């Protein structure tokens, strides 16, 4: 099937305004009759639930943590982009649009990206009004910094805790609606199924993580804002509880999964210290404003960094990409670091690291300025590694970080299942094959504050409120299915723990479908993943019972879904016989090692339809048209 993104036509700069006018509205008095279920209350879901509640809809919101303030958006460090052009350095909505399309290696829809760039400015205003303490200069004006993939300074920040401050802003707006009674919040509640009635999304089945109760909630529309899936690699910069579960359950109920192979490996993370490690920690990309990446020029050079003289260091990003230097986009910077290490010039344990060196900036600006800019990051680095990065260069290595792929949605953020909307990192919409730094926070808030309040009305206006009742047979069936699945997990009583399976899956994924992929490695993974999944269902050991607080059971469910999803990711990576952005197929590279796209055959989104666990999914294609930014080879030289 050829998918239609339902993008408005005409001059790109008018598309969103025109579309807003063309959409249907719900009369203010009728809004409270519609119940909207918002799953996930990070930036996307928190902003959506607060805004929809404020409009007068009857909202129920869900998250798995004990408070909406703890969604993983909280961990974002560096900043959020907007096309304000406050520094007067040549920025514009058009340039942000252009940079995002190019940064995504021409694999995103133009109209969606335009809208994102257009509303980016409203986001900053909104957050300021909420009391988000963005960095200011002495005169009181908002300050900006630079991020990868851009030659203008358009990133707004709050020390090294931008995500925290933006999330607390959304959380406070949500708190206000909870108090007003428009939003009912369900903490420690995990969605384990989507309820589809007559082809439309009308509810979810959840597990109360404190009591173990399984129950369904019905509504007039479901909005999934459940974040990304890179924990499929086991070690990543995501929080321990981040999972594909909500998206995967929706996928199993008919929602198409688009471009799952587009995963972002972030260049600047703290290298792994041992095999008992549970997660990896990011060092914000903003550090590349003042840090210089280098590796020793000589192979196997084991000297301490301070003993390696200047002329024996290779500042490889500056050498290879003189115009962007250390601010080359993430996919490029990650591959360049891996190249150094593969060439036996890596540093630290196992040679899996390169230096990020602040000596020159400290000399130029003073230690205090560097501390002011990145103090909390240096502190975090020291806690983990026991090293002082003001004195010795940081060691960094790439790690799984972000998922550009996600559930397929049209221009309205609606999936192919009517009534199911998907926002934030959980959808596939705007970042193409590679996301630029500081653009995910922007997307989450754009979707939540400024897109869904309009587009959901267009759907609701066409449906009668309260069409599906709690006694609908689909609800009971869904609750039974979830119960049976959990019972099955607990009855196996095998020999291996859930974490052991997760680690093994992570190893298969990282080695075969990680930073570099080939036809052979994908095929290898496609043999190993189903075998591991089979073993899981025979030999996993889950402790306790379902009817109680049980973290082992929570994990087991998530890993079971990753074991199905990992296969789809790999299939997509095998299918996409080109390199683009974060998807690097070793068979397709330029003579200098850059990603080589195949626009003739792959200038489209690949959206997969679920056909059963051991069955081949069906591929649907949405062709991509570039009418404003012309298809070109991405160059950051």
């Amino acid at each position, binding site marked *: 099937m050829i998918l239609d993104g339902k993008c408005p036509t005409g001059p790109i700069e008018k598309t969103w305004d025109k579309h807003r006018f063309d959409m249907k509205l719900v009369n203010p008095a009728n809004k409270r009759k519609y119940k909207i279920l918002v799953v996930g209350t990070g930036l996307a879901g928190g902003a959506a639930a607060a805004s929809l509640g404020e409009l007068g809809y009857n909202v129920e919101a869900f998250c798995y943590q004990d408070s909406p303030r703890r969604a993983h958006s909280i961990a974002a460090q560096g900043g959020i982009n907007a096309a304000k052009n406050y520094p007067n350095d040549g920025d514009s909505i058009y340039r942000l649009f252009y940079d995002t399309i190019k940064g995504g290696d021409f694999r995103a829809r133009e109209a969606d990206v335009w809208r994102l760039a257009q509303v980016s400015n409203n986001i900053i205003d909104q957050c300021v009004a909420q*009391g988000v303490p963005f960095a200011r200069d002495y*005169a009181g004006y908002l300050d900006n910094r630079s991020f990868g993939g851009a030659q203008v300074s358009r990133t707004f920040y709050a*020390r090294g805790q931008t995500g925290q401050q933006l999330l607390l802003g959304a959380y406070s707006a949500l708190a206000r609606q909870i108090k007003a009674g428009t939003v009912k919040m369900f903490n420690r509640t995990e969605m384990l199924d989507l309820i589809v009635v007559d082809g439309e999304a009308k509810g979810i089945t959840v597990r109360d993580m404190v009591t173990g109760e399984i129950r369904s909630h019905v509504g007039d529309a479901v909005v999934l804002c459940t974040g990304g899936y890179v924990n499929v690699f086991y070690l990543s910069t995501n929080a321990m509880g981040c999972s594909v579960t909500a998206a995967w359950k929706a996928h199993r109920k008919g929602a198409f999964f688009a471009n799952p192979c587009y995963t972002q490996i972030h260049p600047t993370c703290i290298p792994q210290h041992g095999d008992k490690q549970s997660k990896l920690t990011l060092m914000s990309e903003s550090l590349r404003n003042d840090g210089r990446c280098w590796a020793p020029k000589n192979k196997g050079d084991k000297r301490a960094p301070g003993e390696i003289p200047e002329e024996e260091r290779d500042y490889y990003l500056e050498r290879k990409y003189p115009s962007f230097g250390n601010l080359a986009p993430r996919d490029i910077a990650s591959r360049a670091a891996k190249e150094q290490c593969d060439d036996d010039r890596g540093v630290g344990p196992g040679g899996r690291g390169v230096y990020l060196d602040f000596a020159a900036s400290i000399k130029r600006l003073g230690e205090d300025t560097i501390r002011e800019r990145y103090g909390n990051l240096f502190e975090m680095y020291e806690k983990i590694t026991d090293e002082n990065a003001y004195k010795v260069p940081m060691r960094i290595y790439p790690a799984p970080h972000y998922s550009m792929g996600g559930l397929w949605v049209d221009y309205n953020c609606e999936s192919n299942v009517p009534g199911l909307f998907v926002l934030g990192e959980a959808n596939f919409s705007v970042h193409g094959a590679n996301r630029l730094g500081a653009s995910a926070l922007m997307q989450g808030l754009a979707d939540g504050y400024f897109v869904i309040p309009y587009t959901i009305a267009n759907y609701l206006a066409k449906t009668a409120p309260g069409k599906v009742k709690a006694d609908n047979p689909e609800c009971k069936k869904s609750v039974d299915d979830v119960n049976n699945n959990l019972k099955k997990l607990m009855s196996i009583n095998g*020999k291996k723990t859930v974490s052991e399976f997760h680690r093994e899956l992570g190893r298969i994924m990282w080695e075969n479908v990680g930073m570099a992929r080939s036809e052979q490695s994908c095929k290898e993974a496609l043999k190993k993943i189903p075998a591991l999944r089979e073993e899981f269902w025979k030999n996993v050991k889950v402790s306790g019972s379902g009817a109680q607080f049980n973290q082992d059971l929570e994990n087991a469910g998530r890993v079971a879904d990753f074991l199905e999803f990992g296969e789809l990711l790999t299939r997509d990576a095998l299918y996409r016989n080109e390199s683009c952005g974060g998807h690097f197929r070793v068979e397709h590279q330029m003579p200098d090692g850059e990603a080589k796209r195949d626009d003739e055959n792959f200038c489209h989104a690949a959206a997969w339809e679920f056909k059963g666990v051991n069955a081949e999914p069906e591929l649907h294609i949405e062709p991509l048209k570039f009418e404003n930014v012309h298809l070109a080879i991405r160059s950051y030289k």
Partner: protein
Amino acid sequence: MSHDKTMNLTLHVWRQNGPKDPGKFEVYEAKNVSPDQSFLEMLDEVNEDLIKAGKDPIAFDHDCREGICGMCSQVINGMAHGGQDRTTVCQLHMRMFKDGDTIYIEPWRARAFPIVKDLVVDRGALDTIIQAGGYTSAHTGGVADGNALLVPKDIADYAMDAAECIGCGACVAGCPNGSAMLFTSAKVSQLAVLPQGKAEAKRRVQEMTGALQECGFGNCTNHYECQAACPKGINVKFIATLNREYLKSIF
């Protein structure tokens, strides 16, 4: 950096099945712990062994494991978050301990935080305090340009110092009265100094302090244990700001 020496530790861990269960300490051995492991990774290993032995693993809250979500919450050897300066449990590393150490691990203990299981408590009362007024009533859309309101750097910095609170509740666990004054004062102060928050400052401080009482938190009697327990270095000067704001609001 990497140390090759591993250590063996004895853990006394608080186990409690639910809010009404009496609860007690159980003793576990943690073997071959690497100094580069985090405290939670050490507990993960203990749990792996418990699961394999068919026993109930220790329940503890955690998520980001990088010191920012505020989910982790354990009293270690009598100190909330283990007592290392400006450090959450998840950022605590085993190099802090020596071979043969005995470690006591308990949940946050406070009247307003009922125990859910083992080391997991219910901190919903902190959300209730924010819901009482920890926001500006900005509508989505229809706000002024971000630069329309100038906020001098020192004010922005002061607001940010307060806004760094991660809502973990260690201040409550560390306070002999179980007061959430530091937590509440951080939000009140952040919004009171910013021009965006001034319009509602009076109502905010009254409603938030009112909620503090209703949720069962104790009173603040200036012990300042909260500041010592706080992993984000939230300063007790914000309590003084809250008190000033409160006085202003009643006159």
